[in-house]
């Protein structure tokens, strides 16, 4: 490969202590990155102090923040830096933010559940405050004055009496001799960073091609790999004939791995050409997949009762409504297909992974990269000498979209296995076809809603029964065999609407179809059916859908406020352009409350066009308003793709869709104007990555009903073509 790689500045050297990469970022500038093995010695380096795992203060005044969650576009690089900056008394742009790799010192690095800001709200502010207090104490010693005479701002400590100032970097020698403070007070108001919208820290490198994703790491003698998986879920490789494929010059290796057949070549195109010439026999599984079309029938089976609350009253004189809703499987379709870079060499495993779960990537890389006997001795060694680290390093790259897909480590296992087999650095890149056909899908579900209404529209009873493949059962088999699955019923239970009696029942299926977490998980399907059916009840009660919801939300001022804000800003009830109609929906998820009003029209071909979405959110304390707006815009587009366009269908044991022509995403032309209004709360921050997704599909479906009188109970939403 060297002959094909003219840039001789690309090199890789590796020894037991240090891993050094020179990577060419464009032809003119070189970026030097040093990845030292993390050790106690590193924490007490002469030119820096590291009072907490996340923060380093350098003699040259650099302030490094090791950001230990994964950046997948949700803006966590910026929002977490803001938490540190607030208490460290620096501006965000005074921090050098570095993406941390896997390191147990950071605690849980899993990035999902809209949880990064929530789980770091306390500890990263504390990390900033501890460091600041340490530096203030150091300054007070230096000036031999009281700490009260010292104030920190803009990365300096100021002497209020004399007017003297010291940069943080000038204080590290003194600070190094002092104990790290254990108790610090945090600001509860008068924030200077929290609540502002500084420029995204990760943006500059994403507009010039310098940001590094899973297959962008420059390593000497690197080869490109791709994997062919069994098209049938649960199937196996029987045999393959690689003669013709290996005859292509530049195709280096073709071999079996745990998940299929790996092809290794000088570049991706050669690997893809080799794939076309491979003859593979796959064995189908004996287990059959229950088609989603059968789910309607399964609604009559008994299910797990996820919620049974209130009292059953006499239903005489009530109006009964019943409806069945159906949603298909969905793929994550991250713009970056599954990819990963790995090098396994003399018992060292180096992985560059776009992962939402670095700890799991570490375990998987260790399992596939280190031999069982070495793992055994490592364990024994670790007992004798605690603190000894396995020689497995997970570098977290930028994620070209996550949405829950990169919570799985299947691609890490493959990259490490292929790198180990070849002995060369490899960059694994899946084809789009493999990516769409070997996802961990959002499960297809069918729901039956039954309600009894009193004459005034109040709800005497509400029954929600759903059928679908259990996510938790697939990911952790037999973990909860007879129990429920909150991933499937989340958002269906604990409804805020007044109901005399409510039951939620889940007919749990287990299947060989891989299912997993997809942005907003169970809240996606449950919000669609719940908010659509509430709309059905409103119309049955001859009440305005907004008024009806307000009537049912008596005891929930926060929800009422969000609902009213979205309605007011959208101009609910006011005259719209000719042919335009409104639909509204409300849902709470990840601790946030979101209301969305969709303004739609129906074109001559019966196509639903969404012109505008007005969104209101209460996510508690707002860290970064523009970040919240960006996530609402993102969630609405993500949800509209599923509401209007995309579906994964399974036939003959395999996925029918293969690329963006038949799994189509919302385009710019189809994207509505999105306006977001944020209620500034005082409770701790709640999640924002996911909760914008659930309300959009029902808001659009409700608007379609307002426009046409047709109740669409199946996604993607399609109107009957009129003859």
């Amino acid at each position: 490969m060297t002959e094909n790689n003219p840039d001789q500045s690309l090199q890789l050297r590796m020894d037991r202590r240090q891993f050094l990469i020179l990577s060419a970022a464009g032809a003119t500038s070189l970026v030097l990155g040093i990845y030292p093995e993390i050790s106690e010695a590193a924490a007490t380096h002469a030119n820096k102090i590291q009072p907490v795992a996340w923060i380093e203060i350098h003699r040259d005044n650099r302030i490094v923040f090791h950001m230990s969650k994964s950046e997948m576009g949700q803006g966590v690089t910026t929002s977490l830096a803001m938490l540190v900056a607030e208490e460290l008394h620096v501006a965000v742009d005074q921090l050098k933010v570095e993406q941390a790799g896997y390191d147990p010192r950071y605690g849980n690095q899993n990035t999902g559940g809209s949880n990064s800001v929530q789980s770091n709200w306390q500890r990263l502010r504390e990390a900033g405050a501890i460091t600041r207090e340490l530096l203030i104490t150091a300054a007070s010693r230096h000036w031999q004055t009281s700490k009260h005479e010292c104030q920190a701002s803009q990365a300096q400590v100021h002497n209020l009496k004399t007017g003297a100032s010291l940069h943080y970097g000038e204080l590290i020698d003194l600070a190094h001799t002092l104990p790290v403070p254990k108790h610090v007070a945090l600001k509860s108001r008068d924030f200077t960073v929290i609540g502002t919208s500084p420029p995204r820290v990760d943006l500059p490198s994403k507009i010039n091609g310098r940001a590094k994703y899973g297959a962008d790491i420059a390593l000497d003698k690197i080869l490109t790999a791709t994997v062919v998986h069994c098209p049938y879920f649960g199937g196996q490789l029987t045999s393959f004939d690689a003669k013709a494929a290996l005859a292509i010059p530049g195709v280096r290796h073709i071999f079996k791995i745990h998940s299929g057949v790996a092809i290794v070549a000088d570049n991706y195109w050669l690997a893809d050409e080799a794939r076309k010439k491979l003859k593979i026999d796959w064995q189908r599984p004996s287990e059959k997949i229950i088609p989603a079309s059968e789910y309607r029938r399964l609604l009559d089976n008994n299910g797990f009762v996820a919620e049974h609350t209130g009292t059953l009253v006499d239903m005489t004189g009530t109006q009964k409504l019943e409806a069945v809703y159906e949603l298909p499987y969905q793929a994550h379709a991250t713009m970056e297909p599954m990819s990963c870079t790995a090098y396994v060499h003399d018992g060292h495993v180096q992985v560059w992974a776009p992962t939402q779960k670095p700890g799991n990537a570490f375990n998987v890389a260790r399992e596939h990269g280190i031999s069982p006997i070495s793992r055994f001795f490592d364990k024994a060694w670790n007992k004798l000498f605690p603190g000894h680290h396995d020689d497995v390093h997970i570098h977290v790259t930028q994620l070209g979209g996550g949405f829950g897909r990169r919570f799985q480590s299947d691609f890490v296992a493959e990259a490490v296995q292929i790198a180990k087999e070849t002995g060369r650095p490899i960059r694994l890149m899946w084809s789009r076809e493999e990516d769409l056909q070997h996802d961990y899908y959002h499960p297809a579900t069918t729901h039956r809603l039954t309600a009894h209404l009193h004459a005034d529209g109040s709800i005497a009873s509400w029954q929600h029964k759903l059928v679908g493949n259990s996510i938790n059962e697939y990911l952790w088999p037999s973990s909860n065999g007879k129990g429920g699955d909150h991933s499937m019923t989340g958002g269906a239970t604990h409804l805020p609407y007044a109901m005399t009696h409510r039951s939620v029942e889940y007919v749990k299926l287990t299947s060989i179809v891989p299912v997993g977490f997809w942005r907003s998980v169970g809240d996606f399907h449950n919000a669609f059916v719940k908010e659509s059916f509430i709309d059905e009840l409103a119309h049955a009660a001859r009440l305005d859908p907004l008024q009806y919801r307000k009537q049912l939300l008596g005891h929930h001022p926060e929800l009422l406020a969000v609902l009213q804000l979205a309605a007011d800003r959208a101009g609910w009830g006011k005259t719209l352009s000719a042919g335009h109609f409104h639909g509204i929906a409300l849902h709470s998820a990840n601790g946030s409350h979101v209301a969305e009003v969709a303004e739609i029209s129906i074109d001559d071909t019966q196509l639903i066009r969404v012109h505008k979405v007005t969104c209101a959110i209460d996510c508690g304390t707002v860290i970064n308003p523009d970040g919240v707006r960006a996530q609402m815009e993102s969630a609405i587009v993500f949800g509209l793709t599923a509401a209007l366009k995309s579906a994964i269908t399974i036939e003959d044991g395999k996925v029918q869709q293969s690329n963006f022509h038949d799994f189509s995403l919302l385009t710019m032309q189809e994207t509505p104007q999105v306006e977001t209004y944020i209620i500034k709360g005082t409770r701790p921050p709640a999640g924002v990555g996911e909760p914008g997704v659930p309300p959009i599909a029902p808001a659009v479906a409700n608007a379609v009903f307002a426009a046409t009188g047709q109740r669409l109970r199946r996604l993607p939403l399609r109107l009957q073509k009129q003859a």
Partner: protein
Amino acid sequence: MSAYTLTINGKPHKVTTSPHTPLIWVLRDIIGLTGTKFGCGKGFCGACTVHAGGKAIRSCITRVEDIKDQPIVTIEGLSADNSHPLQQAWIKHQVTQCGYCQSGQIMAAAALLNQHKAVTEPLIEQAMSSVLCRCGTYQRIRQAILDAAQQRHDRK
């Protein structure tokens, strides 16, 4: 295998490869310019958009032999310091999220601005609608392109 001398971002690059190799893999795997992204391999998503002779092309379905003597510009060659009007507009409107499709979005937008003296919203939508973004940054992309076009207009 054939030898080609490609002009990429103003510099000549000699590569020896099969004439059928799509340009994206010459850029990414052979030359090491990884700013151009692989999204679908079929020309559906536009993540791999670069300029050939000033026009936007999908490098995943363009064979290296078809480049001939057209100069290639990739995202790395748009500016040395994020100073291109579109990059500035991208900063102003805080467009990016995961960023993976953004090289393609910016290159498609740059070709649009190169080819049209005045751009309108319908023209932008027409030119940009086949460049996919799963994070849904379209609204900001639209604003950023309009803004960059306006800035150019104001300077004249």
